[in-house]
């Protein structure tokens, strides 16, 4: 197979995953959330248990009027949804699915790339918040910026811990080096990474930036139609990305019985398990208040992440 054909094939597969995985997660969220609240959730679209609900939603969003507020900064307002979506697509490119280079684009500093690119999302939030010419949007954007900047720290530190343990920045390399007992050794880092990741994608209970009971819908207030759908899609791709990263970094990625043949299946299974937990947390917990949110980050997660770094270093030196 020529190189360019293989490259195109890989990119196509990633785009396919980019378009289907979020839909699966979104549908799972509809159904799991409903059943956790004693409801049924969507039942009609697509005849069987509403499996096509998100497709129907997509069609609905396409039909809606695309409104730009008169006072808004038009170009920035229109660009923001795209900027919100693209980084996650880039991240999906480097996440290894299985052994023997089953990854769209292997990268020597994959972990670093992922952390850097995920950080771009906050610019999209600020763009959306400011250009909407709406006080609720701006407040939501400022909250988001403060939250994302703060949680970036434990996010990176806990990822650094596992990179230190594996002795490499390559995502595939980290999975190769992973051993089951790391589950215990890196447990604090895993929890910190997961919680900080939740905050990074602004999922409940960290959805202070769009707190709908006080800010209407935060930085998304003025968005309608397809652009709003882009932001929603970005949120679900965010869940996929955070679940995939947690899987790859802390849960051993494709490791499992028969991982030579069905490694990719293990990765996907673990990913969906983590995504389930993301949804579960949304149902179980109320939204954190702004001061609680910052307190959790700076007084709990950051010190814990630093302690975990020390622990990792100590074990690494002792071995």
């Amino acid at each position: 197979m020529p190189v360019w054909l293989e490259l195109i094939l890989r990119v196509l597969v990633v785009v396919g995953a980019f378009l289907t995985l979020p839909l699966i997660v979104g549908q799972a969220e509809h159904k799991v959330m409903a059943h956790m609240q004693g409801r049924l959730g969507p039942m009609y679209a697509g005849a069987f248990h509403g499996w096509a609900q998100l497709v129907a939603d997509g069609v609905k969003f396409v039909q809606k009027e695309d409104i730009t507020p008169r006072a808004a900064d038009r170009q920035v307002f229109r660009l923001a949804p795209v900027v919100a979506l693209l980084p996650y697509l880039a991240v999906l490119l480097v996440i290894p699915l299985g052994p023997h280079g089953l990854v769209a684009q292997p990268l020597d500093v994959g972990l670093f790339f992922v952390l850097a690119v995920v950080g771009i999302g906050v610019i999209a939030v600020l763009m959306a918040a400011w250009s909407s010419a709406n006080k609720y949007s701006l407040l939501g954007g400022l909250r988001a910026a403060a939250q994302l900047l703060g949680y970036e720290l434990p996010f990176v530190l806990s990822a650094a811990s596992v990179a230190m343990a594996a002795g490499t920045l390559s995502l595939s390399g980290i999975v190769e080096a992973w051993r089951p007992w790391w589950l215990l050794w890196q447990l604090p880092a895993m929890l910190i990474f997961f919680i900080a990741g939740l905050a990074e994608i602004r999922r409940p209970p960290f959805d202070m930036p769009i707190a709908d009971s006080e800010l209407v819908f935060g930085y998304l207030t003025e968005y309608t139609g397809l652009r709003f759908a882009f932001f929603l899609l970005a949120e679900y791709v965010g869940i996929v990305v955070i679940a995939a990263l947690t899987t790859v970094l802390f849960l051993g990625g494709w490791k499992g019985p028969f991982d030579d043949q069905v490694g990719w299946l293990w990765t996907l299974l673990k990913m969906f398990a983590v995504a389930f937990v993301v949804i579960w947390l949304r149902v179980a917990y109320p939204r954190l208040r702004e001061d609680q949110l910052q307190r959790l980050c700076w007084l709990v997660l950051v010190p814990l992440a630093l302690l975990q770094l020390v622990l990792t270093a100590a074990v690494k030196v002792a071995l």
Partner: protein
Amino acid sequence: MELPGKGLVKGLAVTLGTLTQRTGTQQYPDVEPDLPPRTRGVIALIEENCTVCMLCARECPDWCIYIDSHKEEVVVPGAARARQRNVLDRFAIDFSLCMYCGICIEVCPFDALHWTPEFEYAEHDIRDLLHEKDRLEEWVATVPAPPAHDHRGEPAKEQTAAAKRSGQSAV
């Protein structure tokens, strides 16, 4: 001392528990709802029973019953003078005003008004919620036999009376 994080775990346990239980959602348009006895749906009118005493219209708290009538002379052969009788011209209930208190049904001395459990009479136009007497009569077919207050007790008075009238023994 309580373990830290116990509340958090409890929250997760509750939601997971709910996930495993059956949901109570009724699939209404697909599956007919299982309505309790004495459900208040719409009010049916048995026109023959109405004597135009106007009690219902007067007792109605939000004045949603409209009654028109005229007097008619009935000449009874052999009687000294002709008797007068009220004839119902119009009987209408505006269900856009009705608050389903059931007072009209309670006060009717001749059992002309009845609750029926039918509830699917929504309209696109609010004016169509004014049910005239022929519409109200249509509901009579859906009036259920009144259940006993106690499901093991004796049957309702109306039922025994009806059974006696038709010469059968009470159920």
